[in-house]
């Protein structure tokens, strides 16, 4: 008796999926939206005025469990300003082959400069092209901003690090 019930139950499942709406997505023509906290390829953010958020502190590199990030810092001057603080990343590289997309770098960043985005389409034909340089990671200059380096009125930025709000979420 129970064998029949079991058989019927199994068939039900089969039948349901036969006549249900298919869930297959025709990638790459079709793409699914990712979840809010999805961790895809990083980007380096800018402020609205175009200055880079990254201050070259290398805390992301320190936090990275995969040792995927390399940062080299240089000093800003008012003639050539990249970021609002005293220092900026003159070299910023992420080796996407090493990265495990854990997002620790994003957590470690004091200025919310490095952010893991939605892009998961990372494929390379050689190892070298897996190393994303600063030029590849940094977002385009916002509409009202100016590209970096900027020439800035002396005395505009006097802090080592731009003042940050307490992170909320």
């Amino acid at each position, binding site marked *: 008796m129970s064998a029949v019930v079991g058989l019927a139950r199994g068939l039900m499942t089969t039948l349901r999926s036969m006549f249900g709406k298919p869930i297959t997505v025709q990638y790459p023509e079709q793409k699914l939206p990712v979840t809010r906290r999805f961790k895809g390829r990083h980007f380096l953010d800018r402020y609205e005025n175009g200055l880079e958020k990254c201050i070259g502190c290398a805390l992301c*590199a*320190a936090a990275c469990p995969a040792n995927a990030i390399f940062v080299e810092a240089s000093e800003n001057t008012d003639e050539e300003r990249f970021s609002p603080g005293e220092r900026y990343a003159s070299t910023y590289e992420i080796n996407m082959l090493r990265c495990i997309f854990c997002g620790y770098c994003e957590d470690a960043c004091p200025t919310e400069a490095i952010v893991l985005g939605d892009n998961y389409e990372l494929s390379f034909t050689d190892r070298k092209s897996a190393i994303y340089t600063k030029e590849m990671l940094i977002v385009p200059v916002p509409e009202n901003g100016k590209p970096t380096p900027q020439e800035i009125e002396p005395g505009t930025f006097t802090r080592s690090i731009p003042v940050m709000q307490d992170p909320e979420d």
Partner: protein
Amino acid sequence: MGQLISLEIDGNKVQVPAGTLVVDAARKAGVDIPVFCYHPKMEPVGMCRMCLVEIGRPQMNRDTGELERNEDGSYVIQFGPKLETGCTEVVSEGMVVRGMTDEVSRARKDIIEFLLTSHPLDCPVCDKGGECSLQNLTMEFGSGDGRFLYDEKKHFSKHVPLGELIYLDRERCIQCGRCVRFQDEIVDDAVIGFEGRGRSLKIVTYSEPGFDSYYSGNTTDICPVGALTTSDFRFGARPWEMKAVASVCTHCPVGCNLTLNVRRENKSGGDFVVKRVLPRQNEAVNEIWICDKGRFAHHYASSEDRLTQPLVRVDGELTPASWDEALELVAKRFKEAGSDLLTLASGRISNEDLFNLRSLSDHLGGSTALYSEMAGGDLVAQVGVGQGSNFSNLGPETTIFVVASNLEEEAPLYWLRVKQAAERGAKLIVANPRHTKTERLASHVLRYPYGGEAALVLALTNSLSTKRIDLPNEFREIERSREIQAAAKDFAEADNAIILFGNEGTGLQTSRHLAQACANLLIITGHTGKANNGLIAVWQRANTQGAWDMGFRPAADLIETVRSKQALYIAAADPAGDDPNFVEAIKTTGFIVVQELFLTETAKLADVVLPAQAFIEREGTLTNGERRVQRFYTAVPERLQTRPDYSITAQISQLVGLELEDKHPFRVMEQIAAQIPDYSDVSYEKVSAVVEQWPIIGRSDLYYGGTTYENSQGLGYQLQPAAQKGQPVSLEAVQLEEFDSGGEAGLVAVPVTVLYDRGQMVIPADLLHQRIPEPYVVVHPESIAHLGLIDGAHVRLDISGIEVDVVAHLDETIPQDVLLVPRSMGIPIHGPTPVEIAVVEQAVT
């Protein structure tokens, strides 16, 4: 060591010498009591209150004066009503220290909160971040939350250059005073100080140029926060990203132990580079300090101008060639030259290099010469300071005699060590023709005219002995000074006596006499063959002593020695650059090989130029002025086609049929030990041995000694001088000759040493350029009164047949009729030389 005191710290029973401070006792017991203002090398000041602990002392019965005891025999402990600062309290018998109670934790939390009221949140970009004691202590004891509003923080300028080498960030300063106290107490250069009060207190510099001290970099090490940082390392890397490699400074005979911090750098095309130089603790050599030359001049080793490929002269031009080609050519010509080969080397290279050079030369029957203007290495090997010598142990029972040396300019850390010994009570005799900083703590200051250094030492000896050796007429005056007798008495009667002789105003000849006179004085007074007794030569190069030990000797007349040789092999020396008179002599040589870092003037004359490796790229050992053999390690990969000196020589040797070690310097050391009796007990193992040192300065400790690295790679091995091995040492007569009198104007140029010269090992460090003077001379205004010169005038010197234009500085404190000529400034001078001077252009006033 005095009486031992027993106390208990957080449950640990410890015994420490009487007089120990509670924080130090805790450190020895392995308990961390946090400190900010206290530094184990300085007197406590109790300014920051970070070290608050509960201290209990045994209760005393007022009637009997006995310590009261519980029934079980333990002392009755009475705790004070308030917390006490562990850095100012001295241990006492039966003391109980508690550092883990709630009250102490609360106090620590409060102090941290207080220090952070206006501290900026700079950690992510601060150069100290990662090795900062404020960070560490905040992590350990801080509350994790701030009750103070950010907007109410006081803001100050972030980037105040105290000089071009050291930057101050006023917001980060916690006002511990370590930097100011270091400059005042330790190095006696009171060029920075506090100004203002309270939150507005700031560090200012009083000197021009700013922070004018040879030791300024050390303040950035001991500053417990990132308030003081060097311009050299500004935003260079985060501390945890760099590899630490043990090394030894190659700039002077002190041989300070260093740590090179190395990292790959994109700016340098992805190469490994030395990002900064920090001291490495060696209490017998440099303690935890180094001078700014050692810290900042290292850039020469990574200079773009380095030679990277062998060059061979083809049709009159130096042309790039392969190593095989170059070595084969060299081997062939050396073989042909045979005994007519001269190998000239300086003490800039390691013992291994010098040994191989010597072996090759011996094999071919050639001769060797040391490129040096100082003599006496053989005497140091006989009556040098004994094994176990350590300036740190010198006190009232010691007399230190510094002669013919501007010690701070010649070897800054020797100056510091001598000064500290004098502060501990050692008697200091300073003999020099002009005033030097060494005199500040001297018990006896002796003056003599330039050229009279040996006569002065002789006069000291004469006043002790019945067998007087007559001084030449011109120096008779010296003997009549009453000070001489007093100084001689102090020297002879001291338990320990050390002589440091330098190169102020001396040339090879005079240096020889001076060294002999010093050795005689030591022998006569019995100050040889023991630890803390003997002779130290303040050489001009880091390894000149090693070169003597490897058998190199300076040639009396080098120009003539070089002339008409069939082959010349020059390593780490630039005679043509130092003195154009060499050019013609070198050109008479049949075949010239130069082994160098740079395309020097001498290298430009060569037939073959072999690119050597700098000390950061290879291993080796150096023997310092106290004959301590110390090892440096490979920090960065070799640069292009460069090879270490010992390898190059070994590879030439192999082509002429002599097997020398070309791969492993430790094997070369094995051969040195086998062939050079003085080094028979030296091995890489021995020089790499360490023992625990005091103070313990772990970098992440809460008891913060600074960013100096602890020493786990070797304290070196001090050789025994012949006298200590029981071999006889004999007095040699000192020949004194007449002093060269001057040219028409009666002026004699005498060489002196300055720390920041224009040599190949300093000039490539751009950040020192403001401190490196233009070529200059110093003269007493009276000596050239007829010229009516004003300070800073441009003059033309006619010296050793060469004309040079220099700036003339007038100085009334120096003797008359001499012209002080700094070495390695592009002015050819090897010893006292007649000179003529003419005005080119008066300075603009």
